[in-house]
C-alpha cells in the first residue's frame, strides 16, 4: 500500500496508455475484450505488449482449417489392455477417489457383446469431440465450448459445476470433480466443483505432439490414429476415405470427430 505513489508514477511514465490506470483497468480490459479479436491485435504493440498478447501473435493457436480427430481400429484393440487409460490418467493426474460411482473417467474401455453370435469387442471411449457438441449447447455459462480446431473443452474459469453437460453428453464422456485436489499436473488444471473430460491432450497437440493415449497405444497395439480429418491428405483422412468407419451414435447428428473401424 505504501508504494502506491511510486508505482503509479513509474507506470505512467513508461507506458502512457489506458492500461496502467489502476482504477479503470479491469473495466477497460473487459470493454476492450468485447471488441473484435483483430482490434486486440491492432492494440497489441501499444497496449497488450505488456501482457501476453504481444508474443501470442507469434503462436498461431487453434486453426479453423484443422479438425483434430481419432480413428480407433477396434480389431487391434485387445480386451485386457488399458494402456490408453493409464496413459491418460498419468498424463492428467486423474485417479480413483475410492468412490467408483463418481470417479473421474476421461477415457474408459468398453466391452461390447453381440448377444446373437456372442462375439465381443473392446474399445476405448472418450470425449468424441463432436462438431455439434450437445454439452456446449446446454452450458449456461459458455464454459463448454468447441475450439476452432474442433477440440471440445471445459473452460474451468467459467464452469459453475451445474453438470448439465454431463446430462447432455450421449457418450457419458464427462466427469465431475467432487473432492478438493492438490498437486495437479501443471499442464492439466482440474479442481473441485468443475466438470472435466478428455481434452484430446490439447497441451500436447498445441506443441505438435500426439495425445498421450495415442502415444501409449502406438507402443502396444497401434489401434489409435490421430490426425487432421479436415485435411484430405492426412493419414487419418486417407484411411477414413478407404475403409468403412463409423461414428458411435452417428444417428444423433452430432458428427463426432472420433471414428471407429471394425466395430
Amino acid at each position: 500500500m505504501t508504494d502506491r505513489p511510486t508505482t503509479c508514477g513509474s507506470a505512467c511514465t513508461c507506458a502512457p496508455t489506458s492500461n496502467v490506470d489502476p482504477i479503470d483497468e479491469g473495466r477497460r480490459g473487459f470493454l476492450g475484450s468485447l471488441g473484435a479479436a483483430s482490434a486486440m491485435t491492432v492494440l497489441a504493440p501499444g497496449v497488450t505488449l505488456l501482457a501476453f498478447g504481444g508474443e501470442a501473435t507469434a503462436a498461431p493457436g487453434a486453426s479453423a482449417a484443422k479438425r483434430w480427430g481419432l480413428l480407433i481400429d477396434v480389431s487391434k484393440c485387445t480386451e485386457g489392455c488399458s494402456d490408453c487409460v493409464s496413459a491418460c490418467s498419468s498424463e492428467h493426474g486423474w485417479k480413483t477417489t475410492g468412490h467408483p460411482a463418481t470417479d473421474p473417467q476421461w477415457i474408459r474401455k468398453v466391452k461390447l457383446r453381440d448377444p446373437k453370435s456372442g462375439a465381443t469387442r473392446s474399445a476405448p471411449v472418450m470425449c468424441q469431440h463432436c462438431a455439434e457438441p450437445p454439452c456446449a449447447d446446454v452450458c449456461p455459462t459458455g464454459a463448454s465450448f468447441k475450439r476452432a480446431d474442433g477440440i471440445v473443452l471445459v473452460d474451468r474459469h467459467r464452469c459453475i459445476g451445474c453438470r448439465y453437460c454431463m446430462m447432455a453428453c450421449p457418450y457419458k464422456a464427462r466427469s465431475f470433480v467432487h473432492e478438493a485436489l492438490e498437486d495437479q499436473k501443471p499442464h492439466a488444471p482440474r479442481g473441485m466443483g468443475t466438470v472435466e473430460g478428455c481434452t484430446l491432450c490439447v497441451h500436447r497437440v498445441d506443441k505438435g505432439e500426439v495425445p498421450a493415449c495415442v502415444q501409449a497405444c502406438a507402443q502396444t497395439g497401434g489401434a489409435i490414429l490421430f490426425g487432421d480429418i479436415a485435411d484430405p491428405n492426412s493419414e487419418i483422412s486417407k484411411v477414413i476415405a478407404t475403409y468403412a468407419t463409423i461414428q458411435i451414435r452417428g444417428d444423433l447428428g452430432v458428427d463426432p470427430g472420433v471414428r471407429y473401424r471394425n466395430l
Partner: protein
Amino acid sequence: MARRSPFLRLVLVLAILAIAGLAGIVGAHAGDAGPVIPKATGGTCVAPPEEMRRTHMSLLRHGRDLTVREGERVDGKGLAACVSCHAVSDGKGGAVTVSSPQHFCRACHDYAAVKLDCFECHASRPEPSNKASDAMPDGHPTAAVAALADYAREIAR
C-alpha cells in the same frame, strides 16, 4: 468546569485527534513491517515488480482466455512459469504448496486479505521431479510419430 468558547473546544478536539492519529500511524509502521515476499529463483520477470504487483491478475486473466479458448500458448508466460520461478523451498528438497503461509502468492494475498482461487485447479508448486517416474513409459515424441507412420503404412498396404 469553567466555560470555554466553542472555538477553543474545537481546537482542543482537533489537537487530541491529531495526536491520536499520529500515534496510530507511527505505531502501525513500527509494529507492522508488511508482507515478507520470498525471492524468486529464475531470471527476469515478464514485467518490473511494480507493474506485476499492480497488474498480475490482468495479465493472467488475459492470458488464460487466449490459452484455453484460442489455443495460444507462450512458453514461460503462463501461471505454471510464475509458479516454478516463485517456488519457495520447503526445506526438504521440494517446494511448499499454497496451503503453506510461506507460499509466494499467499505472502501478499494473506496480508491484503484477498482470496486466491487459482490454485483450486492449478498446481501451486512445480511438479515434483520424483513424480515423473510414475508417468507412462515416455518415449520421445518423434518415436511415437514414427510408430504412427508405420501403423498408417501398414493399414494402407
